[in-house]
């Protein structure tokens, strides 16, 4: 554009980074490399957490140290480059998918504009194709003949510290949501490229605390918060007390009970943090309503598996814990709560890591007789599948009018939608528990759903701006149904969503609350022997 004044207008007069957003006044975007400033990166893992994890059998988290992404020197091991290239070689041999993904991309660009990080930042390195190219360029340079001979001309480049820093920047600006994969004509799972990038970075001690501390807590006490059995029990007991106060129904639940038919596992956030608490109350009420013979576990007290965001060994170990507990208690099968990535791990990786779970039985609903053949190998059934089946067989006494304060829409959480195909069950439940819920625009739901923007361990507050950027596509679609249909509740089936969408709504669409689908089920349940108070806000009513 030839308007002379505009060029001047595009530049800040005041120089130096902005205290507010960490932005540096721009020169030319091509001159900008990965620069770490407060607010644009998640804090590095604490030394003690890395040390602890590295000391655990079967886990490998070397190079524990004090460091900061803002420092020039990241205190990498002397032979860091060798470690990275060897690590990549091993993984190319071990994971055939990685080798294929490295080779088969034709850079058609179908994925480029599908990433919520790209859509929210406009940063080209957030185009999935380019994010993958950050790794692919190294692969070409060191592992292909063309790259070895022609180097840069064949799209290769040498592994340097600057490249490593770029990896750290952009593998933590991806939530492994896999929306881009839906559009890839070759089926490249870009999430797996991010997974490998993060694995490689862990080999030289580069990781973030928001992931490694929950992992270390889960390894130690069984849940992200590091809470011990008595605290976990107390919290579930409190929720049961709350239900009794609100509805007059006494909840009969148990912990670590051997011989129960079902083990119930949900993300610990449902038991400890708002608004997940109300979802957990929904579970308790549902199981009470149908008289399910089930138990909670204070050891397998976490559905979430942040191991998925570190490396496959850690993911395997944390997933294995759920099955070890199911075996110890002698249950027939597992029901899993509303979690996101737990289901990706269970559906896509569990079977080859820890399966098949032959010591368990194929889940069969004791109320309806339905056998969940989809869980024939993992023996773990999703609460929404279980609930939808109960509704279909008329086993639940529901009163929609108890949700009359709610005008809902539904956010497909990435992992259940794209990694396990759980798309219609929550919708079927909503049809039966709320009146007139509405869908968001077609290209933002079901398989094409937009991520909350804070998955894969990025739900930490030091990168709040980044989270708001990457959550913009989701929030934008919610705003549409708020404006058009006066929606006041964003329902979902993921614990990370419940926490992060709440913050997302508080910024983009204040006044819109977030809930789990099971909370709406709990609201609508007409319980036997109830002495219900006037609950104008359902289970959230303060009495």
């Amino acid at each position, binding site marked *: *554009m*030839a*308007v002379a*004044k*505009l060029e001047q*207008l*595009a*530049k*800040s007069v005041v120089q130096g980074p*902005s205290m*507010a*957003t*960490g*932005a*540096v*006044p*721009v020169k030319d*975007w091509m001159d900008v490399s990965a620069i770490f400033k407060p607010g*644009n990166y998640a804090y590095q893992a604490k030394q003690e957490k890395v040390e602890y994890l590295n000391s655990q059998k079967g886990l490998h988290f070397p190079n524990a140290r004090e460091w900061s992404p803002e420092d020039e020197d990241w205190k990498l091991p002397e032979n860091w480059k060798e470690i990275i290239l060897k690590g990549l070689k091993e993984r190319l041999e071990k994971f055939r998918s990685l080798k294929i993904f490295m080779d088969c991309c034709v850079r058609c660009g179908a994925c480029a*504009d599908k990433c919520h990080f*790209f*859509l*929210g*930042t*406009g*940063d*080209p390195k957030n185009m999935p194709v380019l994010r993958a190219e950050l790794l692919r360029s190294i692969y070409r340079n060191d592992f292909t003949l063309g790259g070895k001979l022609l180097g840069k001309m064949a799209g290769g480049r040498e592994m340097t510290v600057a490249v490593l820093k770029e990896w750290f920047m952009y593998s933590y600006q991806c939530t492994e949501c896999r929306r881009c994969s839906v559009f890839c004509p070759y089926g490249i799972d870009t999430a797996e490229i991010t997974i490998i990038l993060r694995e490689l970075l862990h080999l030289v001690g580069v990781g973030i605390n*928001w992931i490694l*501390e929950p992992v270390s807590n889960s390894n130690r*006490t069984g849940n992200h*918060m*590091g*809470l*011990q059995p008595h*605290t976990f029990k107390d919290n579930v007991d409190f929720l049961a007390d709350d239900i009794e106060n609100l509805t007059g129904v006494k909840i009969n639940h148990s912990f670590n009970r051997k011989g129960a038919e079902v083990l119930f596992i949900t993300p610990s*956030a449902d038991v*400890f*943090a*708002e*608004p997940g608490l109300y979802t957990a109350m929904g579970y308790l009420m549902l199981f009470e309503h149908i008289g399910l013979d089930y138990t909670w576990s204070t050891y397998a007290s976490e559905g979430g598996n942040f191991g998925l965001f570190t490396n496959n060994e850690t993911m395997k170990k944390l997933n294995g814990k759920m099955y070890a507990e199911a075996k110890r208690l002698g249950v027939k099968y597992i029901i899993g709560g509303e979690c996101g990535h737990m289901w990706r791990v269970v559906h896509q990786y569990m079977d080859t890591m820890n399966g098949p779970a032959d010591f368990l039985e194929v889940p069969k609903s004791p109320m309806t007789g339905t056998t969940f053949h989809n869980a024939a190998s993992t023996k773990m059934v999703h609460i929404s599948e279980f609930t939808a089946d109960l509704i279909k067989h008329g086993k639940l006494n529901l009163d929609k009018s108890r949700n009359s304060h709610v005008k809902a829409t539904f956010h497909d959480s990435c992992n259940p939608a794209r990694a396990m195909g759980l798309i219609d069950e929550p919708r079927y439940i909503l049809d039966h528990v709320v009146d007139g819920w509405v869908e968001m*625009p077609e*290209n933002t739901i079901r398989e094409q759903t937009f991520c909350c923007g804070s998955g894969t361990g990025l*739900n*930490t*507050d030091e990168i*709040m*701006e980044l989270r*708001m*950027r990457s959550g*913009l*596509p989701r929030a*934008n*679609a919610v705003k*549409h149904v708020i404006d058009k249909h006066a929606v006041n509740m964003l329902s979902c089936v993921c614990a990370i969503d419940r*926490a992060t969408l*709440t*913050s997302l709504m*508080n*910024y*983009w669409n204040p006044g819109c609350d977030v809930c789990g689908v099971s909370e709406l089920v709990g609201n609508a349940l007409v319980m036997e022997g109830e002495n219900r108070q006037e609950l104008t806000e359902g289970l959230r009513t303060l009495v």
Partner: protein
Amino acid sequence: MNLDEAFRNYREKIVDQWVNYTLSTYKSSTFFIKEKDKFANPVGGNIREALDCLFDLLAKNADPQEFVAPLEQIILIRAIQEFTASVAVGPIHAVKHITREILAKDKERCHLVQELYDFEFAVDLAVLAAFDLYMHCRERLYQVRIKEIKTGTYLLTDSKCPSNLLKINIQESIPSNS
């Protein structure tokens, strides 16, 4: 030929240039400019929609209160992106220069440039409002952070297990010999 008519004639051209200029502040702006679906392209879609609306308000000397809605649609986005404050709100200003330039190039209408005072004053008011909204958005973001901490999500990393805390307390209460 009066100014109102000139605005009507050049409306599309001015808004288009304004939108393109605003979107050119993003590192990779081709897609933001090209894709018209607001849900596939939230940044481009919202900025286009809002500037389109804002131009009419500026051109007809509307009550500045009416600027708030379209401005908020833009500033909510730009306040959390990696811009300095001035670059975040700067593009609002751009319509002044674009309009002058376009009118000046039209021989029949170049005299109207002299009559742009009211229009440009309205733009000044919009820029000032944009600064207020920018600060409002930043404040809202800080509140979001505080709320998140209050709901207990922070427990994920900042909590200590009670027995460990007890151990630390005991260690600290033992007087050291040094």
